[in-house]
């Protein structure tokens, strides 16, 4: 047979040929093919190499459980390693490459590992590679790591789009096989909102390959009619190519939809994958069952395939698995495969039935060997023959294909994602999940049923029951009740006496003896065996291997599979791309951007921006000729101190506080007093956490009796708002106090410098003379002859005569322009957060560099701000603990180099003069530092043990990371204008 494609039959469209390549070789398939079926049709059975021994491997399954046929598809940034050929919908232009082989999949030098296999048993690496000690990282591990993995990922960014969606429904049906279709139809007819999700590109599940009739009808007709009716119901959404990968709390299901994974010409307007979070009132899990491989020698030779997969390729894609097939079965399924093979005109060499009572109803041509087993399959890169033990004697049968039918395991993963444990059923010889859990019911073969009629009935009945519980009282099953006629396989966990390696976990090369070794070494617990042998840890997550491993462990431990139990089923049901989980939140869109109302004004004035959380803040404003940032910052600082400057402080958190208890509330929130703050005044406030440590600081102004305006730091704005709401709602719900965040409402502009008042005179209608509007004045003002109302605060972070003017955000730019115009004759300049930082360090003002969650007010020189008289405020009670009042707590000091030509950086540590560098000798660290153009030297703030007592002490500022050791002196943290003469200007 030059081609394995049958001339007729199947669900492929022979009028639509598709061209693709495998390892560079051009091949052709048809619409309706998967990559796997197309490879088989082209006679390509050997498609990959196993992980450890580099054994030649072929296509084993036709679905998600595929452990062998992993290929790399796509090019460049679209490269996808470890892709299951069985799940890839074929398209023209698809490029696929085999993996884990060198130089080629047909001739792989790595296969030498197979010869060394006696030394490479389970856990061998735990016992060796330890001597000499240095060799592990220099010699052994690099070799092991080089061998790691199967496919190679690209380093190129993904060019495609992804997105995420929410969906809501009354009933989610997972799987569009017989049970799922019946459930969806039942619910659809009842008028419920239904989502039917299926991982395939064509819904139908096992019906797609079913040749037996269902009642009076062909399976295909049942499928067609059901599907047509579902499609006509507006309340039913059908998500094909959609894998439900996880069941989460609140009955939310995660699903991923392949939107454009079946085409080489990607539409950039649509995502390639879409993540769904489906909030379902109830779900029917109709995920079907997985056929079990049989464990015998050479059960991994290309040509050995699951019987159900063979049927699927035969009936869906009209692909023959080989010319001459041996069936190895221990249930009825093997006979169905034999029937379909013979119906397609293919030879079945023998039906090897492990059961002694072989099916008497078999009417096909193939001979049946009851009570026989396949002990070994033979062949290298392709199956040539099998050794059958028949009546106790070996018989060799020539064959190029072997179907394994070891019984069925219900696919219960999702049902076990939220803690339910699978339960071994002797009757079904399988692990089942609890049939009903809150929000989820299992139906069909996922619930252990076999016959198609029974699955249809079960899905319909369970959907009707679930819907009635949801209030759809008239819901009735769309299919009639049926008895399950299927028989259950008697487990055959492995075949004794195999000569070749009998694989349990194909991808990870775990074979029978590895599990035996695990038991004899004490790793017989199912979890330990998994971890020791790596069984079930490959990309198929043990979908095929776990059940046999459990059976083998049970026999070795002489207990029931029930006593062995399963490993934990965890998301994801099948592997899920980072892209799908990420959606559109990537690159520059990783997080949203938050822009100040003065962003464009700053841009216009040449600002360099810096990210502060989600905000962009203007950092400095370079002028023509300035090449280094320090030039700009020094100029801005000097100019503010000599003339005036304007700075955007809109990003500070701003909160309107209302209510007749607002003052009382603030009094409890801040450690200093607020109850008697006069209307028209601002006050600096220190907010503690309940553990006594400082949380945030800022100024709060009283605009009217029951209306305050709080500012917070930029970084803590959201946290402070949550904190206020917590205190008001959860701690003191009886207080009348309300909050509105007005951060975005106001453009807030600092105008600082000796000429600031003069400049503001040109804007502000009200009297802002020192007498009328002294330091810490705060009030609503009229601007520009009444054109605008704003809020003016006489507060200063720079230590200069300074104001903050708040105006409605949309007018911010116009007002800033007006200030610049008014200030031009006075030499005003815009300044950024760098200059702001320099000036606050010069004045010893703290920020979150100092308020780092480990300081109490006294550490920063704020001891007097802690009200001794207030009965209660947040943090009061814990402030008196021994460690909080200890004398040696790191406390705020200034630090400056002895030689102004030397410098130091933030994060340097402080060592006493001459002390040996050690943690024990660590005196503290520099929290903030900058070059002060006013002092002509680097200056810093530091938290140092006994800090305030050590002014004048010489120390070493130790920055070993940069080999920078600066002799310095501790001093007052106020470097500039300690008498605050300028502030009151």
């Amino acid at each position, binding site marked *: 047979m030059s081609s394995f494609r049958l001339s007729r039959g199947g669900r492929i469209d022979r009028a639509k040929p598709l061209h693709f390549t495998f390892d560079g070789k051009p091949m052709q398939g048809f619409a309706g093919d998967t990559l796997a079926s197309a490879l088989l049709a082209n006679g390509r059975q050997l498609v990959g190499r196993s992980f450890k021994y580099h054994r030649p491997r072929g296509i084993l399954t036709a679905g998600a459980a595929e452990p062998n046929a992993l290929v790399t598809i796509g090019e460049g940034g679209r490269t996808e390693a470890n892709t299951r050929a069985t799940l890839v919908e074929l398209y023209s232009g698809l490029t696929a490459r085999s993996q884990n082989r060198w130089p080629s999949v047909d001739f792989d030098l790595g296969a030498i590992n197979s010869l060394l296999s006696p030394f490479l048993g389970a856990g061998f690496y735990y016992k060796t590679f330890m001597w000499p000690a240095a060799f592990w990282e220099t010699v052994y591990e690099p070799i092991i790591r080089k061998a790691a993995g199967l496919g190679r990922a690209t380093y190129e960014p993904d060019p495609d789009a992804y997105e995420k969606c929410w969906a809501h429904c009354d009933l989610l049906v997972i799987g569009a096989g017989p049970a799922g279709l019946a459930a969806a139809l039942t619910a659809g007819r009842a008028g419920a909102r239904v989502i039917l999700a299926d991982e395939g590109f064509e819904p139908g599940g096992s019906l797609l390959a079913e040749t037996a009739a269902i009642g009076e009808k062909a399976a295909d007709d049942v499928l067609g009619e059901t599907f047509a009716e579902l499609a006509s119901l507006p309340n039913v959404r059908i998500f094909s190519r959609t894998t439900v990968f996880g069941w989460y709390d609140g009955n939310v299901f995660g699903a991923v939809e392949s939107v454009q994974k079946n085409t080489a010409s990607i539409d950039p307007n649509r995502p390639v994958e879409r993540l769904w979070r489906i909030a379902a009132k109830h779900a029917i899990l109709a995920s079907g069952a997985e056929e079990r491989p049989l464990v015998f020698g050479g059960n991994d030779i290309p040509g050995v395939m699951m019987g159900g997969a063979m049927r699927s390729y035969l009936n869906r894609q009209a692909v023959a698995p080989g010319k001459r097939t041996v069936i190895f079965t221990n249930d009825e399924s093997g006979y169905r495969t034999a029937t379909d093979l013979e119906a397609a005109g293919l030879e079945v060499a023998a039906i090897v039935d492990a059961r002694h009572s072989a099916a008497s109803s078999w009417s096909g041509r193939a001979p049946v060997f009851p009570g026989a087993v396949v002990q070994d399959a033979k062949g290298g890169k392709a199956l040539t023959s099998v050794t059958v033990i028949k009546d106790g004697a070996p018989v060799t049968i020539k064959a190029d294909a072997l179907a394994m039918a070891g019984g069925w395991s219900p696919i219960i993963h999702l049902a076990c994602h939220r803690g339910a444990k699978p339960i071994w059923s002797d009757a079904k010889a399988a692990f089942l999940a609890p049939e009903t859990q809150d929000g989820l019911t299992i139906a069909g073969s996922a619930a252990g049923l076999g016959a198609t009629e029974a699955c249809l009935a079960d899905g319909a009945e369970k959907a009707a029951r679930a819907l009635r519980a949801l209030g759809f009282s008239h819901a009735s099953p769309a299919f009639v009740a049926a008895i399950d006629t299927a028989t259950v396989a008697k487990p055959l966990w492995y075949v004794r006496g195999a000569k070749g390696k009998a694989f349990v976990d194909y991808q990870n090369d775990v074979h029978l003896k590895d599990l035996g070794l695990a038991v004899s070494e004490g790793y017989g617990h199912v979890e330990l065996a998994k971890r020791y042998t790596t069984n079930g840890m490959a990309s198929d997550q043990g979908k095929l291997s776990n059940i046999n491993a459990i059976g083998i462990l049970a026999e070795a431990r002489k207990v029931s599979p029930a006593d062995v139990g399963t490993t934990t089923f965890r998301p994801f049901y099948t592997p899920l791309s980072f892209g799908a989980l*990420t959606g559109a939140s990537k690159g520059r869109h990783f997080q949203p951007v938050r822009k100040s109302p003065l962003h464009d004004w700053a841009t216009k004035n040449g600002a360099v921006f810096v990210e502060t959380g989600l905000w962009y803040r203007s950092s400095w404003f370079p002028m023509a000729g300035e090449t280094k940032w320090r030039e700009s910052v020094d100029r801005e600082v000097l100019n503010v101190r000599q003339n005036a400057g304007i700075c955007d402080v809109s990003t500070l958190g701003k909160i309107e506080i209302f209510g007749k208890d607002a003052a009382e509330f603030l009094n409890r929130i801040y450690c200093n007093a607020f109850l008697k703050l006069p209307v028209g005044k601002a006050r600096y406030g220190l907010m503690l956490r309940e553990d006594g440590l400082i949380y945030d600081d800022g100024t709060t102004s009283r605009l009217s009796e029951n209306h305050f305006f709080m500012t917070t730091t930029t970084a803590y704005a959201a946290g402070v708002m949550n904190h206020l709401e917590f205190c008001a709602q959860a701690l003191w719900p009886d207080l009348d106090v309300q909050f509105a965040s007005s951060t975005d409402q106001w453009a807030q502009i600092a105008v600082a410098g000796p000429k600031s008042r003069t400049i503001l005179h040109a804007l502000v209608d009200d009297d802002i003379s020192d007498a009328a509007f002294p330091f810490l004045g705060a009030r609503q003002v009229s601007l520009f002859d009444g054109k605008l109302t704003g809020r003016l605060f006489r507060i200063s972070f720079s230590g200069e005569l300074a104001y903050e003017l708040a105006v409605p955000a949309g007018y911010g730019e116009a007002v800033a322009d007006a200030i610049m115009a008014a200030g031009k004759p006075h030499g005003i300049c815009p300044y950024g957060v760098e200059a702001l930082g320099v000036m606050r360090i010069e004045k010893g003002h703290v920020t979150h560099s100092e308020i780092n969650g480990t300081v109490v007010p006294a550490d920063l020189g704020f001891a007097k701000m802690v009200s001794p008289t207030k009965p209660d405020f947040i943090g009061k009670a814990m402030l008196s603990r021994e460690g909080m009042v200890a004398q040696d707590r790191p406390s705020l000091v200034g630090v400056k180099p002895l030689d102004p030509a030397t410098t130091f950086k933030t994060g340097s540590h402080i060592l006493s003069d001459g002390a040996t560098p050690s943690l024990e000798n660590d005196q503290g660290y520099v929290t903030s530092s900058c070059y002060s153009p006013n002092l002509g030297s680097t200056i810093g703030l530091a938290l140092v043990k006994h800090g305030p007592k050590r002014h004048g002490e010489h120390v070493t500022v130790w920055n070993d990371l940069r080999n920078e050791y600066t002799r310095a002196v501790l001093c007052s943290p106020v470097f500039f204008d300690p008498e605050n003469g300028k502030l009151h200007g």
Partner: protein
Amino acid sequence: MIAPSSHGESIMRYSAFSVFLNALRANKSWQPAWRSPVPKNHYDVIIVGGGGHGLSTAYYLAKEFGITNVAVLEKGYVGSGNVGRNTTIIRSNYLLQGNNPFYELSMKLWEGLEQDFNFNAMVSQRGVLNLYHSDAQRDAYTRRGNAMRLHGVDADLLDRNTVRQMLPFLDFDNARFPIQGALMQKRGGTVRHDAVAWGYARGADSRGVDIIQNCEVTGIRRENGRVVGVETSQGFIGCGKLALAAAGNSTVVADMVDMKLPIESHVLQAFVSEGLKPFIDNVVTFGAGHFYVSQSDKGGLVFGGDIDGYNSYAQRGNLATVEHVAEAGVALIPALSRVRVLRSWGGVMDMSMDGSPIIDRTHIDNLYLNAGWCYGGFKATPASGFCYAHLIARNQPHDTARAFRLDRFSRGRMIDEKGVGSQPNLH
């Protein structure tokens, strides 16, 4: 080849030669790595919890202090707690005086561990890079790196170009929060986590310690203010001293003696991708989102992010957190987009009120506590066992674990690396 052990049985010493010899005997001569004994009526010390810390405590009790009449009681299988479900990272890049020397002791023990307990746990010092994205983060790492160096711990501050040369596939050009550099600890890295539990179990067992699996402690019996033993699913077992090492469930066990702890249990998720050919050589943490990643010897990218944020004993997490972690991952490494995540799982963390652990005596004279490891427990395994064994044997804290006292909260001596205070889900 055969080393005598203290209880008359023999264990096979592991070596390349032993693997070779056994292969010739068709691998039929391997013995159990540890025994499965029936519990005795009484032990000098009972350790509750057969995870990394419990087993390492037993190992060092036997090896360093000669106390071998010890039982480790494990309600599941050996290593079924967090030692078997973490992201395998080891490092000693801590900031504060209470933590830094302790984690460095742990690192030193890691460095000689395998030869010490004759089990290859694949300690791999691949380097840990903490990326920074702002001046403030750089300054914080400068402080931390210098604190490390003050204690003789290796630390390097890398600039953007150096990081780029090492890891050119990180997003340097299109990032929302561009990478500015990294703090690197070259000696940090990864260890095969299960093997740590097995190595300690085998080492402790060979010195006479009884490791008793499937033995859940259901009660603690006290007489005259002292613990006399524990009720278990295998009956009452008496003891001279009782040592708790059940992180994740510390408060549940402590509740048996009506002891409240400054601890909440939170779920932390972790993830592994499909196996890939070598992709990333170091351990890398993203400084602008919750994400860290390394690659296992099998090829899987092992990664994680932040805790889910609510109290849980469920060992499973939330999809929103999964998405959050993936978003941060792709923000850091755009090429991850086409990589597939294989599996997610959750571990139950003992989150303490300052983010640092507790190794201390309790108000009951012969009851000891090892708890509150947050998500730092794995890297601490050797030092935790070492210091806890010291405390149990000598009734005095080991010097390097002196700060991990239970009364530090009431005294106002918290060890808060992040400075977020008594809200565990922020640590």
